[in-house]
């Protein structure tokens, strides 16, 4: 069964046949990250200018070379380091990886960052903007050519068990899909208002016995079923 979902998840298959899910970063978070990096570079250049200014010719050489390196290789250096991301990207929990989820290779990093010159055209990253907005995986030209992807770093969903709830056997046997839905409701319970929780629990009323009416009592019993399905028995 395939469903068209409004989601931008990219799946990468490992040689073991496991599909890893990568979540491409959208335009806004990448834009913020870029702005931070831009500011960092600006500050770095300012301090370099202060230091190299009084040094005469050698200082001027250092200035030109450092300017060149910052302009072209600032992202390359950080992407090839352990974090796989520039400070700006790290701040927004982004990371550059290959299309198959592996760490970025030196060649890919060089290609994606040198092609910035093409992305920048006609002005202010115009080509990159169009490319990123028109693709679900939000790649700019450099990413396309280098086969790289800017992704959100995976975030762990905290485990939440509802210790206060008494486990309750379901009133009838449940399909795996229904089991998963009830458990998913329980894990979301702490984030929902009690009214909304009651409303959603009412949809699953049948699992909690026949004579239940919507309300906190039913909700407690549905959550109890979820706990039972998770494996708690007392």
């Amino acid at each position, binding site marked *: 069964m395939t469903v068209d979902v409004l989601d931008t998840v990219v799946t990468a298959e*490992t*040689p*073991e*046949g*496991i599909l*890893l*899910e990568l979540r491409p970063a959208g335009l806004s978070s990448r834009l913020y990250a870029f702005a931070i990096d831009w500011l960092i570079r600006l500050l770095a250049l300012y301090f370099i200018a202060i230091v190299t200014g009084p040094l*005469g*010719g*050698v200082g*001027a*050489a*250092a*200035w*030109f*070379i450092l*300017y*060149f390196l910052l*302009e*072209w290789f600032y992202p390359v250096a950080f992407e090839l380091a*352990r974090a796989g991301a520039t400070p700006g990207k790290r701040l927004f929990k982004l990371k550059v990886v290959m299309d198959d*989820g*592996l*760490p970025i*290779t*030196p*060649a*890919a990093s*060089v*290609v994606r960052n*040198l*092609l*910035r*010159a*093409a992305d920048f*055209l006609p002005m202010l990253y115009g080509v990159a903007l169009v490319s990123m907005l028109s693709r679900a995986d939000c790649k700019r*030209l450099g990413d*396309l*050519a*280098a*086969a790289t992807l800017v992704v959100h770093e*995976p*975030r*762990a*969903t*905290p*485990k*939440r068990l509802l210790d206060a709830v008494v486990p309750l056997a379901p009133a009838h046997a449940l399909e*795996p*899909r229904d*089991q*998963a839905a009830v*458990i*998913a409701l329980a*894990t979301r319970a702490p984030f929902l208002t009690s009214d909304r929780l009651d409303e959603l629990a009412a949809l699953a009323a049948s699992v909690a016995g026949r004579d239940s009416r919507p309300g906190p009592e039913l909700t407690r019993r549905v959550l109890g079923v979820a706990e039972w*399905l*998770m*494996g*708690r028995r007392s």
Partner: protein
Amino acid sequence: MTPLQFEALYQGEWQELETLLQGFFRMRRSAAAPAARQGERLATLYRRVCEQLALARARSYPAYMLDRLEQLTGAAHQAIYQRREFGLAAVKRLVSLDFPATVRAHAAYVLLAAALLLVPMLIVGLLVYCRPDLILSVVDARTAASFEEMYSPTAESIGRLRTANTDWMMFGYYIMHNISISFQCFAGGLLAGVGSVFFLVYNGAIIGAVGGYLTEHGLGTTFYPFVATHSAFELTAIVIADAAGLRLGHALLLPGRRTRLDSLVSAARRCAVLLYGSTAMLFIAAGIEAFWSSARWLPPGVKYGVAAACWLAVLGYLTFQGRARAA
């Protein structure tokens, strides 16, 4: 099996894999190879966690557990399948084999790029030599005058204005300016090759105009000894970077039996080697241009001799280095 039972059963393995991975990623920094036994254990645990993830997904276990398994699998996948391309051995291989071999593999692009640079250079050079006022259609009058000053026989150092005073400063400037141009030549390939063609023709025309203008003004005796040596590295490197751009453009325009994207990706992957080599050559060129070419005390004869040696060395390196020996 309920999710909690599943978790209790495999918890130990997950924690072991987590600590192994932490140790592994910490070690990568110190470049120490992980102990063989550890690597074996890592691979075993990785395969098992893959299986467990597949099971957990099939059984629709709760999100927190799937997330944890996915993260573990992802991290272990990165640790096991990462490619190492760093290190001195890689650099040595690049210099002795990969770079010249890749240049030869792209010989058609390199020759086309060379033609794109040289033909406009010669045509514009001859035109300007015959009708010097044509220089004004390429650059404005003040720039033309500054060329004369830069290459006048009385200039303190050749090839620069009096305001730019030291070799070191020019070294830095050449690096920034020339390598940025080569990168632009490469990136221009993404515009269906048009950018790469434009940059070369434009730069060729400018160089030709300056050469023709100065020759006509009788300043050839300072200009040619100046450019002869570093151009061996500089022009060749720009041509190679541009050949990489042309290859990208070609891959986009005529992808053959692949998708355009696929063809672009594989072209870009191969072209990266051309960029490494070209950039290194431009560093060498900048050093020569700043410290050797501009030196006034060297007689032109010496400069021509060294220039010939450099041209022979560069062309010989690109043509012969790393070829399989004939039997």
